[in-house]
C-alpha cells in the first residue's frame, strides 16, 4: 500500500493548537490558607501541596550570585539568601516564593506542586523556568501539554528581539 494507513488530526481545526491531550483542572494560590478558603481543594491537599512546592522552591528556585541581579528581576524586597538546601548551595540569592500551582494528577500530565514567582512590577505568576502560569490567583484549566508542566531548565534573559520577516511576505512554493 502506498498510502497512510490512517490519517488523524489531533489539534487542528476544531481545537486550539496549543491544546492537545486533555484539559487539567488546576489553580494558583498564594499559600495553603487562601487555597483552603477558596474551597476547591481540601485543607489537607492544600497544605501538603504547599509544603511540596516550598521544598521544590528551596531546592530549585532561580538562583543569582549577586543580590542586585536578583533584585533587578524580582524587586528590592523580592529576594532572600539561599540556604544549603538549594541545589546550588548557600550564599546566593533566590526570589521569594509568591504562590504555588496545585492540581490533580492525570494520566497524561505529571502535574506537580510548583513554586511560583512574581517579577518586579508584574502581578502574573511564573514558574522557576520563567513560564507564565497564571495572570492571577484562582482556578483555571491547562492543557496537559502546557509548558507550565515542564521541569525548569536554565533560562536567560533575551538580549534583543526583532527576528525575521522584513523580506518575504508570502512564501508558498
Amino acid at each position, binding site marked *: 500500500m502506498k498510502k497512510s*494507513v490512517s490519517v488523524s488530526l489531533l489539534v*487542528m481545526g476544531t481545537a486550539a493548537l496549543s491544546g492537545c491531550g486533555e484539559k487539567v483542572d488546576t489553580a494558583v494560590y498564594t499559600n495553603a490558607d487562601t487555597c483552603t478558603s477558596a474551597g476547591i481543594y481540601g485543607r489537607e491537599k492544600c497544605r501538603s501541596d504547599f509544603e511540596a512546592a516550598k521544598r521544590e522552591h528551596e531546592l530549585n528556585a532561580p538562583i543569582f550570585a549577586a543580590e542586585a541581579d536578583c533584585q533587578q528581576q524580582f524587586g528590592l524586597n523580592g529576594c532572600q539568601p539561599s540556604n544549603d538546601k538549594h541545589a546550588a548551595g548557600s550564599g546566593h540569592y533566590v526570589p521569594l516564593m509568591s504562590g504555588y500551582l496545585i492540581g490533580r494528577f492525570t494520566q497524561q500530565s505529571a502535574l506537580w506542586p510548583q513554586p511560583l514567582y512574581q517579577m518586579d512590577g508584574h502581578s502574573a505568576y511564573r514558574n522557576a*523556568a520563567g513560564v507564565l502560569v497564571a495572570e492571577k490567583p484562582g482556578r483555571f484549566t491547562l492543557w496537559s501539554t502546557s509548558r507550565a508542566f*515542564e521541569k525548569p531548565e536554565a533560562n*536567560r534573559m533575551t538580549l534583543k*528581539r526583532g*527576528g*525575521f520577516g522584513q523580506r518575504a511576505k508570502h*512564501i*508558498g512554493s
Partner: protein
Amino acid sequence: MKRVRMPERADWKADADACGFNVHTMDGRRYWDERYAYAFRMSEIETMVEDPTAELLSLCYSAVAEISNSPALMSKMAIPEDFQSAVARSWRNRDKDLYGRFDLAYDGSGPAKLFEFNADTPTSLFEAAVFQWYWLEDMKTRGNIPAGADQFNSVHERLIAAFRLLAGGPTTLHFAGLLDVAEDRMTLEYLADCAVQAGCATKLLEMNDLGIDEDEWLTDLGDQRINTLFKLYPLEDMVREPFGKHLVTTRTRMVEPLWKLTLSNKGLMPVLWDMFPGHPNLLPAFFHDDPRVSSLGDRHVIKPLLSREGANITMVDPAMATGTLSVEGPYGEEGHIVQALHMLPRFDDVWTLIGSWVVAGQPAGIGIREDDTSITGETARFVPHYIDDA
C-alpha cells in the same frame, strides 16, 4: 495516467473547513478541485514517479556535497559569503532536514523531468497529505472509486515519524512563520499537529518575535530558549536580513537546516546537469552567463535563482504567438539560469504539474496541480489522484 471526471461531493467545503483547510477557495477561485482526478497504475507510480524521486534526491545530496564544498559555486548561487562556511558546516554535521517537493513534468509516457526542487518552504502540504487522503476514503465509501484503490501518499505517517526522529524524545518544538498568511498558518498548524502526534509539545510564533539571548540561543516571546525551530520562511531571505547573522552562531537547531540553501535555488539545476549530464530525469540547464546557454537553442526558460510560485519566469518559444510568456514578480536581482524548454503535459484544456514529496529523505507521495497556463502559478488548482489496477 488519466484525467477522469469525478462527481463533486456536495458537502466537501464543510469538511474542509472543519479540519482547518480554509484556503480551499482563494479570491473566489477554486483551489481544491475534485471535479476531476488523476488515475494511475501502480507500476507507473512506482517506476515513473517514486523511483525517479528517490534517484533525484540522491543526485541532490551529491550536489549539496559538491556545492557546499565550493565557495565559488556558492557565490554563483548567490549564497552570501558570510554564510558559506556555516552552510558547509551544517552539511558536514548532517543537520536533519524535514521535507521537500520536486516539481515534475510527467504525462504517463517518457521519463518525468525535474523542473525544480522546492526544498526549503514547500506548501500545498496539507491538501496532499490529509485532504486528498480523506477524499479517496470518501469516494471509496460512496462507490465512486473501487474499494481496492490506493494512493501514493504516506506523507502524514512519514511526517510524524520524522518529527519523532527530529525531537529524539519529549521536547518543545517551535514553529515560526508569517501567521497572518492563511496558507502559511495552515501549513504550520498542520506540521505542529504532526509533531504533537509524535509526542512533542509545540509552540507557534511569528518570525519577527524571535529573539536571541547572550548564549546565542534563539528565544520565544516568553524568553524561553528555542531548542529546535521549524521556520516556514525562506532561508535565502533570512540570510539577507539583519537578524540573519545569528544563523551562523546560534545553537538553536534550524529546520530546514542551512544546507538547504544549496537546493532551494534554481542554481541547483545547472549544477545537477553538470554533474549528471544526460540524466533522463534532468533537463539541460546552465547559469545565464555560461556560453553553453546557446546550445539550448531558441526554446528555453529563464528562471531567477530565487523565486517562488512561478514568479519572474520567462518562457521563450518562437512557436508561441507572442514568442515569450512571462510571469511578473519581485525576484531576479540575484541572477538567472536558463533551462531547456520542456512543456508541461496537457490534459484536456489544463497544464498539469506533479509535486513529488520527500519526507526525511524518502519519497512520500504526490500532489497534483493544474493551471490554465503553462507556468504553474498562484492560480493553480489542486486535483486529487488515486491508483487503480483493476
